[in-house]
């Protein structure tokens, strides 16, 4: 007998889906309606996805609000474009919406209505929300919303999300429609024959999941048939979708063509015919006067001033990322190291008081001081640059410049097979790959986004700079060569090399792993607006929080694992050191530990790895000590420098940089030849430029793609490329007689 008490079932929260064309102020409204204190689960599913957030209404339990990425149509030719139809109909893992809020822009009402008509045909309960009514009023082009409501047969509300006008009214209408939905009306669009017959025939081809959604309503079924015909067009990327009858739909297209009928043009024109016939009764004729946007655009598109503004904007972004993140990172470092020394001191005192458990206490102290605090420090050091980058992108996007920058960069990146939107992420990569990878979220196409993420690790991030400066100062002389200062030229060459590697990788990957038919890019240039700060700050805050909550754990874990590799197995300093050194220490544990550090590291797992790696990396000119440094560099590339400091037993009290350089410059192979020659330095820098040795980057790639496939792929291929390139540099250089 089952005596378990019935589990109380929470009333299912209603789902409200927000959808609309891009640049209709959807995220402004979404941020305003949803409570920013409730965690947002970003980017479910694949990489580009819907936001979900709780939306408090006055009476009901919180409503689930879903923000669909801006779209012009429900038709989908790829998996990422399917998001819209899936969210609207509740297909797959998507919750079934109880209400749609469709945002329209009065300035581009015809195109907004094209999407509205498709949704009306699907018989989904909805509210049409005309946003930016303040701008329409300022232009003297206020739409007649009462007439629009009459024509469409669905509730229409006018708002200005920026200043909050009409938002309370919208809330009331959403609440009313959730309580008692307005009856669905017939779509106002007339379906001419034979288009209607073709759409009905297409619907019968749909898979069971889609047919179940279609239900029995003939109008809804016909609309889904039309959706199928508009989605499958021969060069679509839906071939793997099980529920879509790809070949049968193409056969329908061919048959229509043989009858002289263009189904795509016919279905689109059918809706626009209705829009063109009815729009004049809603909208006054658009004025042709020059707008502020036109005047600004004249400057921005001017061959000289436009290019200058573009370069100045990007230079500001770049210097802000560098200049703004370095002091923050230094501050985090100093706070973390003073905390760590506090911990060490406290633990040291405890260990003196309890000699029996001293080794355990010391280990725990090191774990906290180096592993945990180090990991937290790594994580927090990302926050300032992330905040700066997100702020910059949000402002540029909000005021309308980001689209123009992308348009301009399109010409530059096209040869590499990347869209203009990849420019800002790639540029950010020169500061740090982690924010750069997160910045690709502004890219609408999954393929472009993945490709950009796959090449970002080749951009020369700021963590490579300390490695380059150490190596250059160690192996290259101060002098000049052919009138040019050697060291700065070598450093500059590394940046050029990184840019070339990035673009080459994009070209190669774009034509192999990411090969697809060339796609036309249609980019909309939104009107210029003053940035809306509350929403911008809310967005930056949300993005940082989601970064910390999603990526924080894995990055901490990776730091701890690396710490373990560099620390274990632990041996007693007395066993490691020669007896005379032990005697000279006169029993002082701290002196013994300091003396034993290089040997501890050599015997650690990382040290063993370095030795094991030597046969593999010796052809590149690297000895086992460089191998240990490479292992340490996985925490962050600049850790290479501190690891080398330990390996070469540099006294932290000395000037670490110059004494490390001196020791490295003097280090020799067993056969007596110098290890750190200019050629080896070049080989090692090439290796650093190409290899993805950064756990944070790998972690973020995993979080953003929701799979280990891409991070593993790039880790392996960049490692192979780095090894090969360094091999060519070192062995080729030796053949040519260089040292």
């Amino acid at each position, binding site marked *: 007998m089952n005596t378990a008490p019935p589990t109380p079932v929470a009333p299912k929260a209603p789902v409200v889906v927000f959808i609309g064309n891009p640049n209709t102020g959807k995220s402004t409204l979404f941020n305003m309606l949803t409570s920013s204190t409730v965690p947002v689960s970003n980017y479910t599913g694949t990489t580009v996805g819907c936001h979900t957030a709780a939306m408090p209404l006055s009476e009901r339990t919180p409503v689930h609000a879903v923000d669909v990425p801006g779209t012009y149509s429900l038709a989908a030719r790829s998996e990422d474009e399917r998001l819209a139809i899936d969210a609207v109909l509740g297909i797959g893992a998507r919750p079934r919406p109880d209400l749609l809020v469709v945002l329209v822009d009065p300035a581009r009402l015809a195109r907004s209505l094209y999407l509205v008509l498709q949704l009306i045909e699907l018989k989904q309960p909805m509210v049409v929300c005309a946003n930016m009514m303040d701008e329409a009023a300022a232009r003297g082009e206020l739409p007649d919303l009462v007439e629009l409501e009459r024509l469409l047969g669905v509730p229409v509300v006018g708002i200005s999300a920026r200043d909050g006008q009409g938002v309370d009214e919208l809330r009331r209408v959403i609440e009313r429609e959730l309580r008692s939905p307005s009856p669905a009306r017939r779509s106002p669009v007339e379906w001419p024959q034979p288009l209607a017959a073709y759409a009905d025939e297409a619907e019968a081809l749909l898979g069971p999941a889609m047919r179940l959604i279609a239900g029995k309503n003939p109008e809804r079924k016909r609309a889904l048939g039309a959706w199928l015909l508009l989605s499958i067009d021969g060069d679509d990327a839906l071939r793997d979708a099980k529920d879509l009858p790809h070949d049968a739909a193409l056969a329908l297209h061919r048959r229509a063509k043989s009858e002289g009928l263009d189904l795509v043009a016919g279905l689109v024109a059918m809706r626009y015919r209705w829009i063109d016939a009815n729009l004049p009764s809603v909208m006054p004729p658009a004025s042709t006067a020059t707008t502020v946007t036109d005047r600004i655009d004249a400057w921005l598109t001017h061959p000289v001033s436009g290019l200058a503004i573009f370069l100045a904007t990007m230079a500001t972004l770049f210097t802000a990322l560098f200049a703004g993140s370095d002091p923050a990172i230094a501050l985090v470092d100093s706070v973390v190291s003073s905390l760590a020394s506090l911990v060490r001191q406290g633990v040291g005192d405890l260990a003196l008081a309890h000699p029996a458990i001293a080794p355990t206490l010391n280990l725990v102290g090191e774990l906290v001081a180096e592993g945990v605090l180090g990991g937290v420090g790594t994580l927090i050091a990302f926050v300032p640059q992330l905040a700066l980058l997100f702020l910059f992108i949000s402002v540029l996007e909000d005021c309308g410049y980001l689209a123009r920058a992308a*348009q301009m960069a399109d010409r530059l990146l096209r040869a590499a097979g990347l869209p203009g939107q990849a420019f800002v992420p790639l540029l950010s990569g020169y500061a740090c790959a982690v924010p750069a990878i997160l910045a690709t979220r502004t890219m609408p196409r999954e393929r472009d986004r993945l490709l950009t993420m796959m090449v970002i690790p080749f951009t020369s991030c700021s963590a490579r700079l300390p490695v380059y400066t150490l190596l250059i100062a160690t192996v290259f002389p101060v002098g000049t060569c052919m009138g040019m200062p050697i060291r700065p030229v070598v450093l500059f060459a590394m940046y050029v090399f990184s840019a070339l590697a990035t673009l080459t990788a994009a070209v190669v990957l774009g034509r192999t792993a990411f090969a697809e038919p060339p796609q036309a890019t249609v980019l909309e*240039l939104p009107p210029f607006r003053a940035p809306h700060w509350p929403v911008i700050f809310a967005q930056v805050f949300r993005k940082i929080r989601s970064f910390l909550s999603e990526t924080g754990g894995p990055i901490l874990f990776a730091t701890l694992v690396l710490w373990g590799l560099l620390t274990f197995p632990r041996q007693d300093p007395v066993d490691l050191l020669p007896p005379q050194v032990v005697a000279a220490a006169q029993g002082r544990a701290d002196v013994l530990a300091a003396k034993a550090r290089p040997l501890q590291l050599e015997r650690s797992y990382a040290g063993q790895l370095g030795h094991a790696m030597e046969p593999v990396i010796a052809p590149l000119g690297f000895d086992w000590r460089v191998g240990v440094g490479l292992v340490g560099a996985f925490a962050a590339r600049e850790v290479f420098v501190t690891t080398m400091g330990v390996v070469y037993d540099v006294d932290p009290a000395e000037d670490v940089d110059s004494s490390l350089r001196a020791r490295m410059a003097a280090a020799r192979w067993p056969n007596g030849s110098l290890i750190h020659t200019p050629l080896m330095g070049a080989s090692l820098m090439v290796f650093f430029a190409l290899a993805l040795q950064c756990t944070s980057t790998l972690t973020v790639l995993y979080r953003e793609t929701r799979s280990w496939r891409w991070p593993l792929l790039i880790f392996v291929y960049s490692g192979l490329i780095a090894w090969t390139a360094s091999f060519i540099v070192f062995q080729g250089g030796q053949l040519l007689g260089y040292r």
Partner: protein
Amino acid sequence: MTLDQLELGATAPIEEVGGEGSFRRRLLELGMLPGTPVTRTGQAPLGDPLSFRVRGAVLALRRADAMTIHVSDSEAR
């Protein structure tokens, strides 16, 4: 003539949207249908892409893509 040949500031109705597959569908769905007037509003500083005003929105199209769209020569103004 094709859309890329439209002079700066000039407007002409679309005659035919060429191209194929998803590109053509996207242009049609953005309201670029036969008879729709299109105004050339500018171009990026590097000369490509070009920008056009269609139904109140400004769209950037690559020159090569604009060449697939035919506009009426005689009705351009």
